[in-house]
């Protein structure tokens, strides 16, 4: 088997060995952090150290960090927990992840905030649409399909101007961009561990002091009575370790990934015609989205997979079938273009050689897929 190129870090990024080592060691610790006896105290100490470490990583206070099962649950807690008497509406951008956008299925008290052709929130429209009924404004930090970086601080200001809370899904930002919760002006922030090399199964919602969310579940009252259930201590330890490692590497990695991304984009544009780059300049260095006009995204993926390249459409599947990207549709792309777009995403293990392998395979794959369409 020849070497593969894993260009799907935004789906899940492989765990570095040092993170795995810390995770495994913590896994060996018995004890429930809510217990008063010694095992409980040991577990609690590990958990709180992880919480403090993560708080430093995101510029928050430790008591503002609520562990969840992942980014999806963090988003759900924020969206479902924010509406309160007198404020029943939530406003979300048109390009949110399904774990935010899905709130539309829970009722009609949801306003969709439009984005422009590059995927940027139209802040003037936001100001128009929200008001005294708005409980929450939710705008993602980095879009999971295109990597576009949203003006979350501006959105937070506008939300506060009408007395609403501001939330951001920072799942794709954390680990790649500097996140400073205190400076952001946000009230709520969602995080996930496995997008930055931590374990799958843990995330966090950062909740500014003084913000009272309504819990969506009930139980033992762990995690500030907001998210009941025994906290998986080892996963929290792994999460914190991954975040620390990402922070150490961040400045260097940002530069390196930006170069890899440029290598891929320039190479594709030089080799393949009728390609549109859907990621604007102001985007995460770890994500790029390309439309290969006239080719079914699924067919390009099939051919890339067979040639050892792992990529993705980045959008949701229904019964294993990719649906045209809602994100690209919201950006005004045609149904055909939205179904012809791929996401390539990078992380610490991505090398220039992996990009070169992808560039060697892509022209033929796209040509074949175009012939098959």
């Amino acid at each position: 088997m020849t070497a593969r190129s894993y260009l799907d870090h935004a789906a899940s990024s492989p765990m570095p060995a040092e993170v795995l080592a810390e995770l495994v060691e913590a896994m060996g610790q018995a004890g429930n952090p809510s217990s008063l006896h010694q095992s409980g105290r040991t577990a609690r100490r590990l958990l709180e150290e992880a919480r403090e470490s993560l708080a430093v990583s995101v510029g928050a206070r430790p008591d503002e960090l609520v562990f969840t099962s992942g980014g999806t649950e963090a988003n759900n807690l924020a969206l479902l927990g924010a509406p309160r008497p007198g404020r029943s509406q939530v406003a979300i951008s048109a390009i949110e992840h399904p774990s935010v956008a899905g709130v539309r299925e829970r009722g009609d008290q949801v306003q969709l905030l439009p984005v422009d052709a590059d995927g940027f929130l139209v802040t003037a429209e936001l100001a128009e649409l929200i008001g005294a009924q708005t409980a929450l404004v939710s705008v993602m930090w980095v879009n999971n399909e295109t990597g576009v970086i949203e003006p979350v601080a501006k959105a937070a200001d506008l939300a506060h101007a009408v007395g609403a809370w501001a939330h951001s899904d920072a799942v794709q930002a954390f680990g790649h961009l500097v996140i400073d919760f205190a400076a952001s002006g946000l009230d709520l922030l969602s995080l996930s561990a496995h997008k930055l090399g931590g374990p799958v199964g843990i995330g966090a919602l950062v909740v500014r002091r003084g913000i009272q969310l309504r819990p969506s579940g009930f139980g033992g009252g762990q995690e500030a009575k907001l998210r009941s259930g025994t906290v998986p201590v080892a996963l929290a330890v792994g999460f914190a370790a991954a975040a620390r490692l990402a922070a150490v590497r961040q400045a260097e990695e940002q530069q390196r990934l930006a170069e890899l991304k440029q290598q891929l984009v320039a190479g594709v544009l030089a080799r393949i015609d009728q390609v549109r780059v859907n990621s604007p300049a102001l985007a995460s260095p770890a994500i790029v989205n390309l439309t290969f006009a006239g080719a079914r995204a699924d067919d390009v993926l099939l051919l890339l997979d067979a040639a050892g390249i792992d990529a993705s459409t980045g959008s949701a599947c229904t019964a294993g079938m990719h649906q045209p990207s809602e994100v690209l549709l919201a950006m005004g792309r045609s149904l055909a273009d939205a179904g012809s777009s791929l996401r390539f995403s990078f992380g610490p293990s991505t090398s220039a050689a992996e990009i070169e392998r992808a560039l060697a395979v892509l022209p033929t794959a796209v040509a074949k897929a175009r012939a098959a369409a």
Partner: protein
Amino acid sequence: MRILAAMSGGVDSAVATARLVEAGHDVTGVHLALSRNPELYRSGSRGCCSIADANDARRAADVLGIPFYVWDFSERFAADVVADFVAEYAAGRTPNPCLRCNEKIKFAAVLERGVALGFDAVATGHYARLDRTDEDPSLYRAAEPAKDQSYVLGVLTAAQLARCEFPLGEVQSKTELRAEAAERGLLVADKPDSHDICFIPTGDTAGFLNDRLGERVGDIVNEADEVVGAHRGYHQFTVGQRHGLHLSVPAGDGRPRYVLGLDPVANTVTVGPKSSLVVRTITGIRPTWTERPQTGSWRGLVQVRAHGEAMPATISVVADQLEIALDEPAFGIAPGQAAVHYDGDRVVGAATIAATNS
């Protein structure tokens, strides 16, 4: 070979795929999503294109360690199979949608897409055999006559068959196949067979057609054109049908009556005795050939329904149609069905039944 294995989620296609993987081929599994709204087709084990079936197919592909994709052919299926099915009933004929799907979707649209993507062949779990000793492959009935599905493949052409693989042609029994599936760790080993038309999982074809064609009350007449009953849509009937007529006037001879014909223009259903269903000759249009087109007249066997018997006949090409003269008269052959003709166990070709004569 690079083979695209069509995986329905059932046990047959799972074992067919497993055999190809074991033989060393580079196999990719593909499940065809044929419904625009998969939930509608969902029916436990009975449909062939539900979400549960897609999941079963994916699980089998994962066990085999091969790539797996779901291809959306719902629009093509709606246009080429479902719309045709409804239009054929509206025209007073009785179509076979499985055959149509093979002809237009599985071994046409899917095969073309696969070939364009670099695959050499499409494989399915159909029970039929391909003999490749000659340059053009020959299509034969399956080794086990009770499971034989060569009839629904009879419309395939030489060009299509050249890119087909049917790994289950030699299977001796379904029991054997299920045992093999279990041995290979395929969890679909005990999954019941599907029997219904996949896009009518309830089995209520009349209801399905009523929804699309509407109910239109008309007369049931006898061969003397006397009204003997009423119907709520001629499309609910098939030539040769005996049950569900609810006739108000009893037959003069007291014998059972059968549907003899449908008239979409007059909206009448004609009924009569079994003797009036006698068919000695069949006219088949749009003939297709599994190898080279035949000319003149020859002796062969003709099958007119999926599990029908093979009837000895003299077959002739007249203009661009087939004229089939049966040795022994047959009963209740419905226009719209396919006449698939054989040389012994070898499939020679097929044609759509346009007319029958006594």
